[in-house]
């Protein structure tokens, strides 16, 4: 049994062991053997992430979700051939870019909680204010990115941005500028990640 790690161009630099490249058309799949009884532990996920991060240093790739195992290399070839055009299009979409994650949360307020229960109107006003804060930050960052995905979460904003590699410093600077102008918010920007949020069909829509 082998695990698919990433899809990349057939012309990309050859991977080092234990990775093997299986090709079909203009694409190739990078695979690793799966040890008997191996399961999704935190360590295994961290190892996989580090492997993908090393690979993305010198090539464009589509990361494959952990757990995508196939019986052998011939099966990997088949998967690649069957979905060739879709995967090639997805690889073109992320070419030259990385994924940056941004989360925005309110800084814990020091003032005591309101004495009275908020009225229905106040509650709705607060909800509207929340979504406007999120939209404001998101719009500024989305303007610096190739594509963006907003995810639900407990924070005000949780989003992923597909950013050109050379535009990463400008993006980070914008996050820092926003942080300086909005002390009531906490902004957390992490990356660069492989384009996990932009590798699948959801990003094509």
């Amino acid at each position, binding site marked *: 049994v082998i695990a698919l790690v990433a899809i990349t161009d057939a012309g990309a630099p050859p991977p080092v062991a234990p990775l093997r490249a299986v090709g079909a058309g203009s694409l190739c799949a990078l695979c690793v053997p799966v040890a008997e009884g191996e*399961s*999704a*532990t*935190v360590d295994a*996920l*961290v190892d996989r*992430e*580090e492997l993908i*991060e090393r690979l993305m240093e010198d090539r464009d790739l589509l990361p494959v979700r952990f757990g995508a195992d196939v019986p052998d290399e011939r099966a990997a070839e088949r998967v690649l051939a069957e979905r060739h055009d879709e995967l090639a299009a997805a690889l073109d979409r992320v070419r030259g870019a990385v994924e*940056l994650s941004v*989360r925005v*949360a*309110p*800084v*814990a307020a020091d003032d005591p909680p309101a004495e009275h229960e*908020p*009225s*229905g*109107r*106040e*509650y*709705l006003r607060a*909800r*509207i204010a929340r*979504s406007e804060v999120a939209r404001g930050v998101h719009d500024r960052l989305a303007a610096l990115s190739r594509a963006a995905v907003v*995810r*639900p*979460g*407990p*924070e005000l904003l949780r989003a992923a941005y597909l950013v050109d590699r050379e535009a*990463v410093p400008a993006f*980070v600077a914008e*996050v*820092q500028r926003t*942080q300086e102008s909005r002390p009531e918010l*906490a*902004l*957390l*920007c*992490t*990356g*660069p*990640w492989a384009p996990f949020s932009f590798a*699948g*069909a*959801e990003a094509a*829509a």
Partner: protein
Amino acid sequence: VKDKVLAGPLDLDPFAASDERLSNALTRRVNADPESVERGLAQLVLTVVELLRQLMERQALRRIDGGGLSDEQVERLGRTFMELDRRMDELTEQFGLTSDDLNLDLGPLGRLL
């Protein structure tokens, strides 16, 4: 793992709620034992309720923006959503879930919420 923080506050507390997400998700995905069936079912039901709540709230906010509602209607809507929000928090806590769990991965279709 290399330091992946490109920009962040000195104090990461506002984001600490997600810390347990990874290990929770792992244990839940991997162990499909009988005891977790009830929780899995609750997770499914609450996810659908949460989807409806978000859709309704979005619709309500849009109507308030449009200005077509009386003060009394706005107040009643607000109270309803506040109560719904609180009940959802209570229920998710009861079943040992977090708001991160109230989502469904639909595979190639992406995520529900």
